[in-house]
């Protein structure tokens, strides 16, 4: 009796473990865009291997996907200009911090990239910051806005503004532009981004004479918001502030139906996703978010980017697409000025980016390696965005 039992045990376990391992290996390596054509057509350009570790799927999937689209467009332009040649490899961390850490290790130690674009989200950056510092490879995140992201050391930088500033901008907009006195916060307690943004909104809103009448929390991935919606509907607040990811907010808005019509809703840049409209079923009323640029800004630099993006991807570019494009520009600028092409030299050049003209505004990295630039407030319509105002620090 013992033998067949063991056979059964091994057989069953093997049945599950083998495909698991197989699936894991297959999904990790997805070099989408490799060095196409000749390595260096002009022969004089500086060639750098770039690894993009982004959240292409999962609850923040469109964040990474859009920024990757923007990045690819930038790399096309940069390689066409010929002074710098960027060889891009793409990896998907599935919005999972541990997966991101695994991939960072792999791209540096196995695939030998000289610089990293990413990770996409604040939790993933916070998880991998120390690792990136230890591996001594410069990483620039296009989209992670939590204040702590660049605290891990000089190898981590970003082209976006930070949440303390974003929260201030939102609070200013709510208090001064809209004239509201009372707000209720609905925070994703499992997400550093959401908690950080809520903190800075709260303190600025109070400083400006506003009142926080209540706070509620949920967790990333929750599906049932019925109790939360009914509870919030009883709030005295004029504005509901929901600094969460589009994947949760979308479901929340759909389930809210018309129960939240008396409120104005405010969100952060994590709402900025085409999926928000699918998940919410277009059920979005009186909502504003702070984000990185507005697709309908009359600025010729912006419109040039928007038109090209639409031509290539047949989609309107969101804020993260614009940030992805600017990340590409930032790497070009840094590599042109870098004394050599070692990771350390590239890092020094990145950290001295000053006044770079990007789609999302003028990018200057401060001593914390955070980009200093204004936030754009857009109104969220049932199927798109409309430029509202711009708020500087």
């Amino acid at each position, binding site marked *: 009796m013992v033998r067949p*039992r063991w056979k*059964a*045990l091994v*057989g*069953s*376990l093997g*049945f*599950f*473990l083998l*495909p*698991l391992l197989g*699936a*894991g290996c297959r*999904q990790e390596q997805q070099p989408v865009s490799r060095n196409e054509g000749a390595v260096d057509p002009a022969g004089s350009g500086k060639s750098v291997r770039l690894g993009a570790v982004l959240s292409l*799927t*999962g*609850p923040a*999937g*469109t964040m990474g996907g859009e920024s990757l689209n923007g990045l690819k467009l930038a790399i096309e332009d940069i390689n066409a200009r010929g002074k710098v040649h960027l060889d891009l490899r793409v990896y998907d961390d*599935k*919005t999972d911090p541990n997966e991101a850490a695994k991939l960072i290790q792999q791209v540096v130690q196995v695939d030998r990239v000289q610089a990293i674009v990413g990770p996409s989200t604040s939790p993933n950056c916070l998880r991998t910051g120390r690792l990136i510092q230890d591996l001594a490879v410069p990483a620039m995140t296009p989209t992670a806005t939590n204040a702590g992201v660049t605290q891990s050391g000089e190898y981590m930088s970003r082209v976006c503004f930070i949440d303390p500033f974003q929260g201030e901008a939102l609070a200013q907009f709510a208090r001064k532009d809209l004239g509201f006195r009372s707000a209720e916060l609905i*925070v994703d*307690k499992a997400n550093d981004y959401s908690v950080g943004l809520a903190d800075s909104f709260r303190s600025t809103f109070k400083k400006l004479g506003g009142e926080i009448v*209540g*706070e*509620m*929390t*949920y*967790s990333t*991935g929750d*599906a*049932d*918001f*019925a*109790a*939360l919606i*009914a*509870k919030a509907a*009883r709030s005295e607040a004029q504005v509901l502030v929901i600094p969460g990811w589009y*994947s949760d907010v*979308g*479901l929340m808005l*759909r*389930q809210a*139906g*018309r*129960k939240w019509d008396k409120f104005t809703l405010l969100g952060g840049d994590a709402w900025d996703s085409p*999926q928000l409209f*699918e*998940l*919410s*079923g*277009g*059920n979005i*009323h009186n909502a504003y978010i702070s984000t990185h640029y507005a697709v309908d800004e009359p600025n010729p630099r912006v419109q040039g980017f928007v038109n090209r993006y639409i031509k290539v991807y047949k989609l309107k570019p969101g804020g993260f697409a614009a940030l992805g494009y600017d990340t590409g520009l930032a790497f070009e600028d840094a590599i042109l000025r870098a004394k050599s092409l070692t990771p350390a030299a590239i890092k020094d050049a990145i950290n001295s980016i000053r006044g770079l003209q990007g789609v999302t505004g003028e990018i200057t990295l401060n001593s914390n390696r955070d980009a200093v630039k204004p936030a754009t407030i857009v109104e969220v319509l*049932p*199927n798109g965005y409309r430029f509202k105002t711009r708020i500087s620090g």
Partner: protein
Amino acid sequence: MSYLLTQLGNGLMLGCMYGLIAVGFSLVYGVARLMNFAHGEFFMVGAYGALFSAELPLWRWGNGAGATMFWTLVISVLVSAASGALVSVLVERLAYRRIRRVSRTATFLVAVGASILLQQIGFKVFSASPRGFPDVCTPVVVAAPTLSGWLQPSAGLPCEVAVTSQLQAVALSPSGTSAVTFVVLAFAVWGALFFVLRTDTGLAIRAVSIDEKSARSVGIRPQPAIVITFAVGGALAGIAGFLWSLRYGGVQPLMGFIPGVKAFVAAVIGGVGSVTGALVGGLLLGLLETLSFAYLPGEVSGYRDAVTLLLLLVFLLIRPLGLLGRQFGEAA
């Protein structure tokens, strides 16, 4: 008062869904003596089955919006039940059957493995990005001018659908989806109870779950009973997956994990192995979660899972076998 009623309704709905998942979980445990941790994944597969069937252009069938909605619902229920049952039976055949008699620990590990495997397959096949569930009531809503702002017409859906009387009223109210969900839930629960308590097959299943050896001695073969139980449990989980995504609006590969755990809890509260117990346990859990969120202050209410599970712990200290549980013979 109306706030209390609203939240009671929310809790009831959530509880019914937990109950529906828990019934399948409990049935399977009773018959196969197996903590089926992949049960939540059957739920996920059912939700995807319903998503794909609801996206088919079925609105071309039938005359008028009411009929359209009705057929879309019927087909979604059937497809979700079928896909849940199919994957459930497959997992039983490929994994559990070989290992069932080896050891408890091994079956436990295989169940956890099956759960993770199905999630990973979900990532691969459906992608990890969440999908919005189509509102199967949309054609009706779009046709009503007074509510045109409630939901923007989705591309591809006909705006000229004729509106018919009674069903329209249900579908037009924002709680239309809730009403539909509740009716289907009630039918599924009733069907499950009827099957287990009132049919010969149900009797055989209960006999196997009480004492496999004695059941065998009166001519009941346990293996077919187990397969049927897995099919029924999977179908119930699949239907729950459909209703869940209809009500809460989203579908994604990890969606089954938390409801699966909750169903496990509900089954334990009710007494594992007892069908009515699982149902009662689910209802209790849903009400408890919703009401604790509704009435606790904001700083605590977000931790409703912790609050609920703490209560469960206390409850189990007082009644280790659950509400309607009974001692199982270990010999089975």
